[in-house]
């Protein structure tokens, strides 16, 4: 029973980490986007992900309270007081924002995945996860609408935008495999219908992504390489950098609130 509870806490935190780190990355565009309207739109998307992370962490904190009582961590402590190796996010979300093409290519691949994933998670036997998914899916439908249009606009745009998009896809393609890799705790929760079988989403994801890329006159990169490890805490060199910026305030002034 205790193991099962640990698996669930790990799973919920991992989902929260995916959202928080992607939200943090997107927020880096704030004041730097190509123009004002896009700046606001990107910040909105970033906030959607940070809000999602908060829901996952609040739930993880509740779950911890059941086991650890007063020693359980708060949502803020989970977000701001863990080190690199304790983060469980997928590698693809921690990669630097790069140029606008890279940001959008990453967003598109993740949005397609999120849509498929959340469509399943709304049926989770865990009612809290199902409720979070129900809220998140509406946001994701909109995120995908945006990122899809940018793929078409940039892919089938100027020579430069096309080249930048192809380069971006090539750079991140090897990280997409991890979207479909099951962690031990996810597999353990699968039997009770709490978690989702990621591996089963791969063919639909490929189909949707390939069709859109073709429409955008972009080549689907070849599967030459792939890296995983985020779910076990084995991150790229960029994770430390993002945490240093994100956690600076809480590390310097522990417990600070506004």
């Amino acid at each position, binding site marked *: 029973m205790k193991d099962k509870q640990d698996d669930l806490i790990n799973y919920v935190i991992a989902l929260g980490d995916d959202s928080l780190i992607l939200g943090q990355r997107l927020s880096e565009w704030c004041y730097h986007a190509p123009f004002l*309207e*896009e700046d*606001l*739109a990107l910040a909105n998307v970033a906030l959607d992900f940070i809000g999602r992370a908060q829901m996952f962490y609040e739930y993880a904190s509740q779950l911890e309270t059941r086991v650890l009582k007063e020693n359980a961590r708060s949502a803020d402590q989970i977000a701001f007081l863990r080190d690199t190796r304790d983060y469980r996010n997928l590698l693809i979300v921690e990669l630097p924002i790069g140029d606008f093409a890279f940001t959008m290519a990453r967003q598109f691949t993740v949005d397609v995945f999120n849509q498929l994933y959340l469509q399943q998670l709304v049926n989770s036997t865990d009612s809290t996860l199902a409720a979070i998914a129900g809220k998140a899916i509406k946001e994701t439908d909109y995120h995908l609408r945006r990122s899809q*249009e940018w793929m078409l606009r940039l892919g089938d745009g100027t020579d430069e935008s096309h080249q930048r998009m192809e380069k971006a896809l090539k750079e991140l393609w090897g990280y997409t495999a991890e979207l479909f890799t099951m962690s031990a705790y996810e597999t353990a929760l699968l039997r009770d219908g709490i978690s989702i079988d990621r591996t089963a989403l791969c063919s639909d994801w490929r189909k949707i992504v390939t069709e859109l890329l073709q429409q955008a006159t972009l080549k689907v990169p070849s599967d030459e390489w792939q890296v995983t490890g985020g779910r076990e805490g084995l991150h790229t060199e960029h994770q430390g950098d993002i945490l240093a910026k994100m956690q600076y305030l809480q590390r310097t002034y522990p417990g600070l609130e506004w």
Partner: protein
Amino acid sequence: MTDKQTVHRPLFEIFIRSKRGLDHKHVGSLHAENAQQALEYARDCYTRRSEGVSIWVVNSGDIVASQEEDAASFYDPMEDKPYRHATHYVLPDSIKNM
């Protein structure tokens, strides 16, 4: 990057209906590549605090506006025709607004 067209995106006027039954009201304008994108940016710029249930976008160039120099012939003649206003009627108390 030096392509000036990417800098000068068309301007759109944004109208938001805040509730069912109310009119769309002009809330501002924004730049976008096309009407579809304008609609999305309007959603992100003007409805993020639940301000609306419906959005209209109109290409600013499609709006025909009255001109300042026509003011004398357009509006001044109405100033001395107070009988066109319903201000002399006493409203029953039960009617709050008219």
